């Protein structure tokens, strides 16, 4: 067993983080809410990194590279639909939606879109205009027509997985900002980091983020090797854990940063607002849990004691 990311992937992740920091990080994402050209520049940054040469459907190495790229994009709150474009079908970006209330992040960008729900049902999309909401400022309400066939289950799984890596990156960055803040911020004559309540809160958030990172690595490592039904359950498991961890860690970040964390000049505010679509859509973590219930008795939600799941007949 080797639970570490391969060295070349770690190096690529570092290069990606550096390039996206040069793009401007979360503060560039904030400006992109009003400056249209910045989303084109975000795409250029991704192109510089070779993002659009990655074949996430047929190469495990490329999928892993895409995962750490999504992680870096999450840390930067990069204002671009990376996973959606990596999973494009016939040139149309793929969005995961809830048909009851379809919304597409960055749906106003030029180009075609295809929508699919978690069952893989495919829809035509009609997009309206951005609502410029505080939470999810690039969300665009959509109207679906169809259904119009299906998209491969593997695409839905990869979408959920890459989105989870993006949440992971956002949470790692939010925790690091919080760590730096409590170390530097003096109250009652000493750094916040000297108060045990603060230390324990950081410890709990740190364990949560570590756990999510381990789960994210595990999930992506066996995408190619596991039975399709188990892979789908794995993707739901990861997305559910990512959403739950996000709620805990972003709450921690806000609490420990105090009023500063609500200000857009703090990256925590931007990370929180811009990551909300991934945390809440296409469905809530409660709905994800409900979708996983049949996998308990069916064995798709694997444990040390579950029987191997037979491959689905083709």
């Amino acid at each position, binding site marked *: *067993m080797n*639970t*570490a990311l391969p060295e070349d992937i770690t190096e690529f992740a570092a290069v990606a983080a550096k390039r996206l920091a040069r793009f401007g990080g979360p503060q560039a994402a904030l400006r992109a809410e009003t400056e249209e050209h910045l989303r084109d520049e975000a795409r250029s940054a991704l192109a510089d990194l070779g993002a659009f040469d990655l074949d996430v459907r047929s190469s495990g190495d490329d999928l892993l590279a895409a995962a750490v790229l999504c992680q870096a994009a999450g840390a930067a709150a990069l204002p671009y639909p990376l996973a959606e474009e990596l999973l494009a079908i016939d040139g149309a970006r793929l969005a995961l939606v809830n048909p009851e209330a379809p919304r597409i992040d960055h749906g106003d960008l030029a180009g075609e879109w295809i929508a699919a729900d978690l069952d893989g049902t495919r829809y035509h999309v009609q997009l309206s205009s951005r609502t410029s909401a505080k939470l999810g400022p690039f969300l665009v309400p959509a109207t679906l027509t169809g259904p119009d066939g299906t998209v491969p289950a593997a695409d839905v799984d990869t979408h959920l997985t890459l989105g989870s890596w993006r949440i992971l990156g956002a949470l790692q960055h939010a925790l690091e900002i919080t760590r730096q803040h*409590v170390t530097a911020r003096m109250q009652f004559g000493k750094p916040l980091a000297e108060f045990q309540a603060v*230390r324990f809160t950081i*410890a709990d958030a*740190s364990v949560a983020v570590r756990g999510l990172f381990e789960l994210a690595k595990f999930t992506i490592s066996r995408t190619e090797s596991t039975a399709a039904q188990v892979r789908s359950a794995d993707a739901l498991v990861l997305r559910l854990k990512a959403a739950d961890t996000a709620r805990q860690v972003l709450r921690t970040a806000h609490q420990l940063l105090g009023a500063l964390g609500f200000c857009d000049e703090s990256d925590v505010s931007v990370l929180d607002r811009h990551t909300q679509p991934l945390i809440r859509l296409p469905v809530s973590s409660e709905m994800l849990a409900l979708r996983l219930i049949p996998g308990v008795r069916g064995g798709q939600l694997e444990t040390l004691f579950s029987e191997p799941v037979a491959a689905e007949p083709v």
Partner: protein
Amino acid sequence: MDYDLGADAVELRKRLRELISAHIPEGFLGACTDDPRDLATTESFCKLLASDGLLALAWPKEHGGGGGSIWQQTVLREEMWAHHEPRGAQYMGINWVGPALMRYGTAEQKARHLSAIASGEVIWCQGFSEPEAGTDLASLRTRAVPDGDGWRVTGQKVWTSYAQMASWCVLAACTDPNAPKPKRLSLFLVPMDRPGITVRPIRSMLGPHHLNEVFLDGVEVFADEVLGEVGDGWRVMREALAFERVGIARYARCESLLDRMQTELGEDWDRLPESIRARWVRALIDLRVARLLAYRAVSLQHDPSAGAAASAARIATTTCDQQVAELLFDVLGPSALDSGTSARLHGAVEDHWRYAQAATVASGTIEVQRMLVAREALGDHG
């Protein structure tokens, strides 16, 4: 990056499940019960494991061990804990007394104790905690006063698991009260039948044998019974406890209990309230995360950059223990408090709930683990 435990570890899991199925009676809940047959079961099972080189799997072969890989050791931890630790009270001797002897023991001490531990013939207890020194072990008050070639030890130990059944004790005592705190303590390897030692069991919700008081009244100890150097006990203790810093594979019992309960319920599982089934899903996810954090800690156990990986794993797995205990109680509803062999799963749920209350206390409290994680994240503030 791969999560394959390896063919030898997978094979070991199969072998252990076969041995357990063949030799551990249905409804076995560990050595610490009111039924003396359970203790006898662990004693015979330990000898069986020892004969296969599986009891001291992690130890080098020269000391009677099995020379197993870290992933075989992981599988052994998982399978033993999942099946209510049929090694019983041997856990302590195997997991840290033996490794500490290998590192700090004299040739005579190694010869005397290691093969006995590896063959499952002796039970050890750990005389560390005192009424005034629990987590803060460096403050313990039991005194060892020089007397001839050795010392006379007087004081009181508490919470000492297996003290009633143990034949040996690793006893921590203060040999120099005027030395700086880290240099005050020494460790002694003392037979429990030595005059002056009195054991008094403490009734507790955990069950018999878990908690005892040990009174030491002028107990004679000798120079050749010191483990490591005189005055170096604190360092030896800390390093010895680090041998088992990955800790108990609590997630494995939780996964096993959920699996057994699901089988027991059959189609009734589908009729559980949706809120319970959703909690079940979340528990399985949290257990997977705890297992992966444990695997990460295992893979880093010889890496100085491991930092707080083991503490993170412990926090995750001990909190899962309590989460699953509450979940299973809510599944059982009005029959949750039933115990004994006539209860659901032979009382395993009630047993688990009681024991899970100690998960965040035993072997280093969750507060200490949080301190270690925070120290890595924030430095030494506070």
